[in-house]
């Protein structure tokens, strides 16, 4: 079943089309990678899916239901969670409180959740237990990114959008996140869409990859297919046809 349907979405900022005529569907239970050079419109597309940016044209559907005119919090209650490329942590709260805020909110639409248990479990799983009591603003960027990931997971999403989750992380952490994400998809049935600049990371992890360039969807396929496409090579390796 398709979990996320992006249908012919265009976003214009004045004269600039940051996203144009993008259609994309993400089936349940896969990891989908989105790549593309700087300014390709990846973050803007995420904002449209999450409801922070209204599309100029086009529709978004979550699990078959049109959510185009829904505010972000209603989409979240339908199982959408995300992280931000430019971090949006709750800076004056502690790491644990950041996670608790998400787990508390979740109790509104999911019964039988114990925020404390969720928080402790995630702190353990993402290995943030050591810094659990630190104020987030005082932590390095890499750790803050992990806090965002933990917070998004605490919301108990079905669909997780990760915007450059690995940037600023050590190689060790990247590997750790990589296997965690796989595990989430395989064991917990999560669906993940991730935007990445780190090619080996995204190619190694994704089941499908889509590429944006100048706001347009220029290629889509399995990692191997994508790597062989001329458009991709042109954009990434500067090869001219």
């Amino acid at each position, binding site marked *: 079943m398709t979990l996320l349907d992006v249908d012919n979405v265009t976003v214009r900022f004045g004269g600039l089309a940051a996203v144009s005529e993008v259609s994309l569907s993400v089936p349940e239970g896969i990891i989908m990678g989105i790549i593309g050079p700087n300014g390709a419109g990846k973050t803007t597309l995420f*904002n449209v899916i*999450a*409801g*922070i940016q209204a599309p100029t044209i086009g529709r978004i559907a979550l699990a078959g239901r049109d959510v185009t005119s829904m*505010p*972000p*919090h209603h989409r*979240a*209650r339908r199982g*959408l*969670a*995300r992280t*931000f490329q*430019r*971090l*949006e*942590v*709750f*800076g*004056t*709260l502690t790491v644990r*409180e*950041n996670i*608790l*805020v*998400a787990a*508390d*909110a*979740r109790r*509104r*639409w999911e019964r039988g959740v114990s*925020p404390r248990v969720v928080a402790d479990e995630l702190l353990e799983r993402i290995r943030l237990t050591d810094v659990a009591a630190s*104020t987030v*603003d*005082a932590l390095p960027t890499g750790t803050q990114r992990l806090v*965002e990931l933990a*917070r*998004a997971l605490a*919301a108990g999403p079905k669909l997780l959008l990760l915007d450059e989750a690995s940037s600023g992380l050590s190689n060790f952490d990247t590997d750790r996140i990589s296997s965690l994400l796989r595990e989430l998809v395989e064991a917990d049935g999560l669906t993940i869409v991730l935007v990445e600049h780190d090619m080996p990371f995204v190619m190694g992890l994704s089941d499908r990859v889509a590429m944006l360039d100048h706001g347009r969807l220029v290629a889509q396929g399995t990692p191997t297919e994508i790597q062989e496409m001329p458009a991709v090579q042109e954009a990434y390796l500067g090869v001219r046809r």
Partner: protein
Amino acid sequence: MSQRVRRTVVAFICVGAVVGVLAPAWAGTPITTENVLRVVLFALPIAGIYAISATGLVVIHSTTGIFNLAQGAIGMMCAFLFWELSVNQEMPRSLALILVLFVIAPAMGLILDRFLMRRLARAPLATQLIGTVGLMAALLGIATWIWDPNRSYPIAPFGGDGGVRIAGVLLTWHRIITIGVAIVVAIALRHLMLHTRLGVTMRAVVDDPDLAAMHGVKPGRVSSISWIIGCMCAALAGILIAPEIGNMSAETLSLLIIDSFAAAVIGRLRNLPMTYVGALMVGLVVTFSTTFLDLGQRWSKLPTVLPALLLFVALLLLPQQKINLGRVVRTFKMENQPSWRSALVAAFVLVGAAAVAAPLLSDVNASRLTSGIVVGVILLGLVPLLGWAGIPFFAPYALAGVGAWATWRFQEYMPGVLALVVAGAITGIVGIIASLPALRLRGLYMALSSIAFALVMTNLVFLQPEIFGQYRQLDRPSIVGLELDSPQAFALFTTVIYAVIALALTWLRTSRFGRQVVAMRDSEAAASCLGISLLETKAAVFAVAGIASGIGGGLLALSQRFASQEQFPMVAGLALILTLAIWGVGMTSAPIIAGLTMAALVIITHDWAEGGWTNALELAGPGLAALALVSAPRGQIVQIVEHAKYHPLATVLRVGALFAGGFIGVRFNLPGAVGFLLAILLYLVADVLGSLISERRRRATAGGVHGDPAASGADGAAVGITDPLTKITARALDRRLGVSNLEKVLR
């Protein structure tokens, strides 16, 4: 709701309201060409003044990012200076005019920019606004100090008495000159912006300050020039408006200019031509209402709040402010989260101290104490709003007034204490209504809308016959047979209520809800993407604020045994916020200290050391202190606590000396001024002694000073210094780095 639907709805409501007021109030003035012409001709000079003033606002805001709430006060100061020079010192008028406009006003702009505004430019929005409110209060205070408010200060209109008769309508020379000046200002600024190097530079800064700086633009110079232009506009507006209002008073003059906010907002705070259009609209609406309407008792004050209403409508018609992404402005941890236990202990100590002290106080002193604590309860409502949620809401008295009214209204149906609770609930609901603009407006626009809200409440709603149309008498309640009639008992009663509300707030802050509110302040985008409804959360915060401030308002009415509109003026509300901000907006301990500070200032002003300089103290004191806020945006309590941590002895000495001075003053019935001076003198001596001692101790213990890393200041953040760069931390840095004296460099 889509933009179009919303605009239609707003338009319908406005038309409905206008028709609803117009139909019964129509004065029957025939709509003749002459009358219409009269409206237009009278609107033009008013519009001219608003336009000039708003131009100053727009120039300053668009280049420096600061919205100058003191614009009116600056104009007021200049108008008074003009009076001083031309009337009192008998200087030739033209010379006085040139002096004020081209020497004094630019000098003011330059000084303000250099010493205050540049530092404010990097502070968080709330601090910026409070800084300019502080400036307003300080200028008001200074003006009342120099120019006794009980005398009159007439300025003759320019161009004498005559005028030009256009189709039977007399337009005085002064008004013709006003219109002319407004046009000249518009043309001059347009020329400056479009055709001079300076203008190009200024526009570049507006478009992209970083890029402009990269191309060698000196931002400091641009900001100086903006402030000079802004102050000159303010002076011009002030001097032109002064002859129009028969008796010029510092307060009316400072507030008249709030009317120009609407014009500036219609110009979206950056478009000068649209600002002129906005000014014209405000002028037309005001003159229309005074020409064609015969407003009865109920709506008699409507013309004075029309600009505020227009401002409100203009704000609601602005395009929805998007959820900000990427935290441009650093969030500040405005609140300290005391542990539940320490809060409980503090509450008990407070009530215990009041229980011991109250019976010892004279009636007068008990009432004074009560008035301070009552203000504290009103301010408690602002703790969740300003401190936790970071919503700049500047209308505490608007909520308090509702509480006072509800207490009076329900007093006859139920026991007094219960009426107070009901009043809290009702004000909570009003708070939710007041939160509606907050759902669309953020930052500066939210602050402006709350000021408009305060004006409309005090000058229109509270004057309604059903509210405070008449003198409303209240009787003090009794709890389970305990009479609260004596001032001492009532002082204790208010203290207990303060402690209960403060404890409730502490509990709320540590609860799920408190976390959620702070999360929303830190990142609205992330909060809403986690399924948190911003709408509900903000409404809930406003409801909490309404409950606390409403109970405070009820207490205020009970303590004075009556309720009236004059108890809740807008400016005094701003002064309250100033005082709260000085101590720290986010802590439940700050409001009572702020309330007592206010009470102390009132005491000094009115009966301790009456006359002369103390008259100014009530406003100038908090005003000047608020300016000090620039260096301590999180408030004095945090500062003092931190200082006390490193220099406990000095702190004890200082506080002890202050109390000793006060005690000696009161105990030996010294004339107030002497006691007050003694207190300050002792404080200073103790301060010097204390710093000497702590200096020694510090040298003896060579350990490093560890600040709370979350306690971030604005200045050094860019270079990775997260503590506020105060002298103390600078010294600590010195020692660690082995540099001789960073402190000197700082200065």
